[in-house]
Structures are given as structure tokens and as C-alpha cells.
């Protein structure tokens, strides 16, 4: 197994550990994204993040991967420390698996990953209020449409 693949493997194990072993169980037994959507989402996006960690550190790709991971973790029974904290486990894993990274600022890269994770976590939390508001507006959608109609405005 290549170094990035091993790092991804270890990292996934650390991320899954936040679920008290249960999601780890999913990831081990289920390969199908429709039977184990949490495991699949973690696996797919952590692999992409490891590619960036060893590669170009493209900000858009990193944000996109964390957006998916944090969409899940921000609404599950995880404190913010647990939801985001797994990112830092990459430090030891990378040190152990890729000592040849010396010369590359691995710590700096991990800090950038953590920052993205935290930003995405907050963005997800903020979206919840907007979702509730929009749902409430749709619940009175006909009254709003009537009001707009009587004003002659498009609904």
C-alpha cells in the first residue's frame, strides 16, 4: 500500500473513532455508498484531503472535501472539538508514515486543513437558521403569494 493510502487508512480510523467505534464498523463492513453513506463520505473525502496534503494543497478542493465531511459531523452528536479535532490526528500519522516529508512544512499544512475544517463546520451550523426560516416561509407560501399578487409583484 502506498504511503498516502496508508495515511488515508489511519486517518479514517481516527475520524471514525469519534463515533465510538460504530462508524468504524460501518466502514469496515460496507463498501456501498447507499448502505453506508457516512463511511463512504468519510472515505471519499479523506482520500481527497490526503492527496492534497501530499500534493498541491489546493484550497478549493480542500474546502469542498471538508464541506461534505462537516455537513455530516456538524449535525451529529459530536462536540465541535470532536467534529473538527480529528484533523490534528493527521500530524502523528504523517510523521510516522512519511518521515520523508521533512523539508515540507507538514505542520503548516495541517493547520491549513484544520482551518478549512473549522470554517466549513461553522458554515454548516449557520445554514441551519436559514433552512428553518425558508421552511417557515414555504409553510405560508400561499399567503405570501397572495400578498405579492395583490401588490402586483411576482411571488
Amino acid at each position, binding site marked *: 500500500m502506498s504511503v498516502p493510502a496508508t495515511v488515508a487508512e489511519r486517518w479514517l480510523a481516527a475520524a471514525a473513532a469519534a463515533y465510538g*467505534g*460504530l462508524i468504524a*464498523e460501518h466502514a469496515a463492513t460496507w*463498501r456501498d455508498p447507499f448502505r453506508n453513506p*457516512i463511511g463512504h463520505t468519510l472515505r471519499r473525502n479523506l482520500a481527497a484531503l490526503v492527496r492534497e496534503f501530499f500534493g498541491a494543497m489546493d484550497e478549493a478542493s480542500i474546502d469542498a472535501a471538508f464541506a461534505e465531511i462537516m455537513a455530516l459531523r456538524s449535525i451529529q452528536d459530536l462536540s465541535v472539538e470532536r467534529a473538527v479535532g480529528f484533523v490534528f490526528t493527521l500530524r502523528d500519522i504523517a510523521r510516522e508514515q512519511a518521515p520523508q516529508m521533512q523539508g515540507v512544512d507538514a505542520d503548516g499544512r495541517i493547520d491549513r486543513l484544520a482551518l478549512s475544517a473549522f470554517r466549513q463546520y461553522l458554515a454548516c451550523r449557520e445554514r441551519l437558521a436559514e433552512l428553518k426560516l*425558508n421552511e417557515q416561509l414555504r*409553510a405560508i407560501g400561499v399567503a405570501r403569494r397572495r400578498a405579492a399578487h395583490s401588490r402586483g409583484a411576482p411571488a
Partner: protein
Amino acid sequence: MADKPAIDIELKAPKGDWRDARVEFRKGTFSNASPPKDLVHLGLPNPRKWQPTDLDWQLPPDWKRILLEGMKDRLARYRSFRLFMDVCVRCGACADKCHFYLGSGDPKNMPFARAELIRSVYRRYFTLSGRLFGSLAGARELTEDVVKEWFYYFYQCTECRRCSIYCPFGIDTAEITMIVRELLSLIGVSTHWITEPAGNCYRVGNHLGIAPHAFKDSLEFARDELRDITGLDIEIPINRKGAEVLFVMPSADYFATPHYYTLLGYMMLFHEIGLDFTVSAYASEGGNFGLFHSNDLMKRLNAKIYAEAKRLGVKWILGGECGHMWRVLHQYMDTMNGPADFLEMPVSPVTGTRFENAASTKMVHVCEFTADLLYHGKIKLDPSRNDEYVVTYHDSCNPARGMGLLEEPRYVLRRACNHFHEMPAKTIREYTFCCGSGAGLGNDENMEMRLRGGFPRANAVRHVREEHGVNLLACICAIDKATLPTLMDYWVPGVQVAGVHELLGNALVMTGEKQRATNLRGEPLAKEEVHA
């Protein structure tokens, strides 16, 4: 489809002791309690002010006796309940089938584990081994913590029945949930989002408590909008005695969006075929939140449908797009409030088709009715009017698993739209993933739990969005129409939600209509209309 696994992780058993009943009521993961006025309106026991986060739930002093007697009574009355308590062999076939488990990873959301929460109490009080050997025989004392745990987890089950499809013994955890909720209601433990609409329904006829004149105003507004869109005067008769058909719909169809566009679609269709129908200002709600509370409440709320059919002297009943409404109509109405021997076997006045499947209830689903019209070539569609949409179809749990309505909505959609793609096979039809907000869970305060439960469904939508560019999720359930847009906005932005009859209404070519400039949402059509 499944990608290559990056890793293998050792199998571990869930941590902690499943018998530990303590739950943490975290904001965002539970529904608010029923306030006293709800229970007073419905004549239900133990009205008081409380919330699940309170330490003291102010249960009646003899709450334990009430629950155990309630269990005893139901074990005697419902053979299914007794069987479901006895026969689970913990084979695990249902373990990974619940959307709440798949979205949360919480082991108590595995269906057999959810059922175990009451099964353990059943063993303790109703079996010899449980009485003698206690926890060694998987038995548990009934404590206040257990009551709280029941509330937490049985209001985390959307009664969707997906697990039952996989159980070799046909154990239906949804029915277990229904019974536990009913037991909880005996001691005044229920949720506001269920009892408030139920109370409104009981007193006024619909969930929001919309009075008859406001109901009429809404339908008049629909008539105005239909005139703008089609140039035709499309009347919506209310309380018209002697009509052939009573049409019953969920009330969201006339107060919420996107439901309302489905209402426009039905009315265009009925006008085009000249259906002799009426709606009722009293049976102005097909939905029945009693289903999520107790058998008795469901029966009381349902009674108005046959009562109105009788009062108005119709021959049969047609029902709109709704999920749980159909679960009640299809599975329970006949037994609860039938026989409807004052009605006739439903026969389509246009095609002559006898709906023998509805011979007993006398009530036909609008998708069956429309599919039959299309099958006989009685209506003309221009699917290009829906060309802006790349459509997939969400089988709402109740019509799909509760009544087997799998083909008819698809039959309509494939004719009304040029671009239609199915989600993966194990996520649709009888295997459909729930929206995660049904059975009274679709409220604001429970948003995080809903997003967990809806994740497997959204994940499958996302798949067809990536593969085919899907931008519209069609469905035939009022709760779906209220909650799937939220789910999509969170998990799969860019996917809208619509009813099947909204798309039908867009495509329906009507006699004498003006050239259409917009779809039913008032949005400009993607292409110029070629015919008038």
C-alpha cells in the same frame, strides 16, 4: 458504484451498555412537548407545562401502572404486537436499514435495538424468564429513564417500515413505534407538532385551523391564478351536494408551497376532463396526525371523510397527493370508520375503469386515476413544457410501502417529462429511503435529527444529480413537499421539489387554453409555446 475501500477497520461492538436508559436531550434532536391546551382540546390525560429537557416530567403518580396496564391491554388486543415482542431472533438483517441509523451512527437507531427498548420491558413484566432472571434474560425495569428513552427513540422513528421489508419474520418496527407512542400518550407524553395540528383538525377540520371562509379564499385565489396561467375559468366547487366525487387533499396543498402548485395541477386536470366533483370545507384535511399519536385519535380525525361523503351524497372519493393520509385511508379507514356501504364502487367517468382495488374503501388515489386517463389516451400532454427539469422520483414511504403505489406516479412522470432518471435500485420503490421528517418529526426544533435521518435519501439524490444533472425531485407526499426542500438545500443544493401533478399540470394541453407563458410556479417557460 461502490468505490474501492481505502481501509479495513476491525469490527468493534458499540461501546456502552444498551440497558443504560439515560439519554441526553440535545437541542436540535427532539420535538417539543405538547402544551396543556393541546391536550385539553383533544381531551387527553395529564395536561401540564413541561419539556423533555426538564428533570421532572410531571408524570401522573401511577404512571407505571398505567403503562403496564396499557401494555397488557394491547398485548391482548393486538396479536401482531405480541408476536413482535416474542419473535425477533436478532439476526441483524434490519440493523443497517434504518435511515436514522445510517445518518447518525447511533446504535439505538438500529430497528431491532429500537424495538428492544420496549421488548426488554415486556420480558421483565410479561414473561416468566424475564421475571425470574431479569437482565440475564434481557429484561429491564420500567423506570422514568426508560420512559424518557422511549420518548427520545420512538420519536426518532418515522414509522417508514423500511426495516420490515428486510425482516425474515416481517416484524414491523413502525407498528411497535405506534404502540409505544400510544402508551406514552396515556401518561400525557406527546409532542406539540403532532397534537396541535391534530387539535386543529378535530375542531376546525384541518391542521392549521383554517376556517371555512379562509379555505374558500385560498381556492378562489387558485382560480384567479389558474385564469392567469391558462386563460380558463377553472371553478373549484366547495360543499356541492350531489357531486359524483368528493376530492380530499392534504391542507398544505392550499396553504404551503410547493404543494400549492400540485393543487393547481389537480384542478386543471379535473377541469379538462369535466369531472363532476366537490371539495369539502369540513373534510378539508386528508392528513391525519392522529396516526402519529394513537389509534383512537387517528380514528376520530378520520371519521369526517366518510361523514362528509355521506352528507354530500357523492358516489365515491378521490384522494390527492399525501403520504400518511394514504396510510390511514388504505390500511385503517375501512376498519375504523367503515363500511362505506353508502358509496359505490369507484368508476372513472372518463374511461369506465372500475377501481376494484378500492372496492372496499371507495377511495381512489389521484395518481391511479390520472395514470388510467393517460393509459386510455384521454388527456394530451406536452412534456417539453417541463424541459427545464431533469427529474427523479422519491417514493414516499407510505404510498410505496404502505399501499404499493409504485408504478402509477412513474407512469405519469414519464409522460409529463422528457428527462427522468431513477435513483439506485436499493433506494427506491419498496426499498425507498424516508425523508427523515415523517410521522410528526418534521418540525423546526428537531432539524438536526431530521438532517441525519434524511441523509441517506439525499445521498441517493446527489448520486443522480452527479450522474444525470437531476434538478428536480418529484414526490407525492405533503410532508415530503414541506421537508425535502430543506433536505435538498442542505445536502444537495440546486435540486427543487415538486408534486407529480404539478408536472402534469405544466404539461397538460387544455381545450381552449391560451398560449402558456409560464409554468405553474409563474416562472417563464424555457421555450416559446408553439401551439395555443
